[in-house]
């Protein structure tokens, strides 16, 4: 049995193209089952995320087969003859590609972990729809082992890669459990909104929004099940806030030592985390020199995210080595070749391949 992969992803296909091939979570199993019914296709799994749509199929067919899958995909999504940046991989290359995808090595944000769950969900849907059998069942089980192995034995997932993720990571390293943390938003900009949302997903409660436009404060507070206050009242909320996010358009700092010192005395050693994403800055940099105060501005947060992204990129070679080792271990031929591909996948077949004519 041979394994083929046909797909397109964010690297070559812009969102206008990707959205034409998007398969919703609920339709995933059904689409896999429909693909598996196509002549000469024995098994199929459709993986569709915001960054890629890929068809993994098992078949006895060989060289001309990728074109046959592409024809099916074009028919299914009514794509006509539009030139589309499809890629296709067969046999060991297809297996290698799936291993890379599941390990986060092919993701836009290198090492992101969400893709692993998406691959699992796509396979589970196909399995439930009866679109898989021995070959893809084995392949996906091995894929999950490889995905876990690569993440465990490399640093590809290490470090936060976005401003929101950095803020959450720092907050967790300061407070531990965020469930008891109160977040005060001063200003309702887009980054502060997404940062507060990231904190809320990790358990932060009691979000208070203060903004010059009270309507906007109320709107954001409503979105986060928080409370809106008048802009002039934010100082009275400082003593009880654990995380303060500043993102106003004020031309000068709005928080300095004179605001923070009395607050620190009231907090009795409990740390205070300031996230200043405003330009010009909202919080006087001198505030960060105080014991128990951790202050990060937008450059500080961005540089941590950039550093993490670089670190992840530097891990790619190690991850590739790990995948090659596992391909050898799992009996998948590992030498890289483009076409024609004659090597098998190393996966057992439930029935013998047809005799050559």
């Amino acid at each position, binding site marked *: 049995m041979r394994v083929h992969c046909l797909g397109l992803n964010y690297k070559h296909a812009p969102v206008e193209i990707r959205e034409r091939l998007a398969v919703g979570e609920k339709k995933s199993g059904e689409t896999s089952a429909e693909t598996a019914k196509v002549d000469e296709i024995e098994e199929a799994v459709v993986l569709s995320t915001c960054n890629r749509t890929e068809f993994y199929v098992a078949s006895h067919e060989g060289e001309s087969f990728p074109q046959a899958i592409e024809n099916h995909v074009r028919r299914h999504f009514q794509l006509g003859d539009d030139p589309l940046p499809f890629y296709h991989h067969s046999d060991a290359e297809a297996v290698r590609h799936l291993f890379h995808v599941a390990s986060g090595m092919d993701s836009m944000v290198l090492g992101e972990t969400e893709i692993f769950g998406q691959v699992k969900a796509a396979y589970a849907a196909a399995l439930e729809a009866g679109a898989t059998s021995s070959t893809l069942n084995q392949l996906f089980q091995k894929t999950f082992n490889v995905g876990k192995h690569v993440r*465990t*034995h*490399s*640093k590809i997932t*290490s*470090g*936060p890669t976005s401003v929101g993720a950095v803020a959450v*990571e*720092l907050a*967790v*390293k*300061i*407070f*531990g459990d965020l469930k008891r943390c109160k977040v005060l938003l001063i200003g309702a900009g887009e980054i502060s909104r997404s940062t507060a949302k990231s904190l809320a997903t990790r358990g932060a409660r009691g979000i208070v929004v203060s903004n010059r436009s009270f309507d906007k404060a109320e709107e954001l507070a409503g979105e986060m099940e928080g409370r809106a206050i008048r802009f002039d009242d934010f100082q009275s909320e400082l003593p009880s806030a654990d995380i303060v996010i500043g993102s106003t358009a004020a031309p000068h700092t709005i928080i300095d030592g004179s605001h923070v010192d009395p607050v*620190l*005395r*009231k*907090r*009795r*050693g*409990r*740390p205070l985390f300031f996230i200043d994403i405003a330009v010009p800055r909202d919080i006087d940099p001198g505030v*960060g020199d105080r*014991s*128990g105060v*951790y202050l*990060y501005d937008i450059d*500080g947060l961005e*540089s*941590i995210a950039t*550093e*993490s992204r670089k670190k992840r990129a530097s891990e790619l070679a190690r991850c590739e080595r790990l995948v090659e080792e596992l391909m050898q271990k799992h009996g998948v031929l590992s030498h890289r070749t483009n076409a024609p591909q004659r090597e098998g996948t190393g996966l057992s077949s439930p029935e013998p391949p047809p005799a050559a004519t």
Partner: protein
Amino acid sequence: MDKIYLGIATAFFLGGFIYSVIALKNGSFRPSRYNLAAMLGGLVFQTLFLGDRGRIHYACPVTTAAEMFVFIAWAMVIIYLVLGPTYRLSLLGVFTSPLVFFFQVPALLAGFDKVAAEAVADAKGPTNAWLETHIALALIAYGAFAMAFVAGIMFLVQDRFLKKGKLNGLFFHLPPIQNLSRAILLLVILGVALLAGALGSAYAIDGAAGTAKLFIMHGMWVLYAVLLGVRFTRGLPSAQFARFTILAFAVPMVSLYFVR
């Protein structure tokens, strides 16, 4: 046999520490696995050692400086095993094991004369329960202060990472700063309470009152109690509390020379 037990225990702590450092460097450190196993293994052999020495002395095995060091190290490991999981301080073991190792190496090098110890035990007569209680409580208090010292170092390391925005491998493995702050506070409270018990039991021992040993222990108790008082009443910042806890540990260390 006691020296073999101590040697094996020391090897466990050293092994656990070396493994953790290598794993941290390679980025493959997994909390609560090998390091915890090494700490547990070390504890078993420490206990066997202390049991052996206790049988020789017919008393709490703290008759020499070497034994006192092992006893404190034993108390530290037990406190780590109780406190670590509660506060998710998996890396505390990595920081604890070198200190435990350095406590046990001098003891290992000093050696233990079984015949002499038996002769001393025979000459000493029956054991005094108050004396045993006093010594045991005092040394476990020293163990608590030692662990506060270790947690204080971890706090300052993590505080520096957070202040400088340097998120390296160790940063991700170190516990949250607030957990460390709570752990230091708890350890100092534990140490002060145990030392109070040790001082109280000392007054039940004939001839103990007014000795230089007891004077030093009182001084140490007052020092840590004042530290706690300032923390609670004046809201001493956590970083300063950690710094004072590290500095204050010099007092129990020096006092060991006088009270042994």
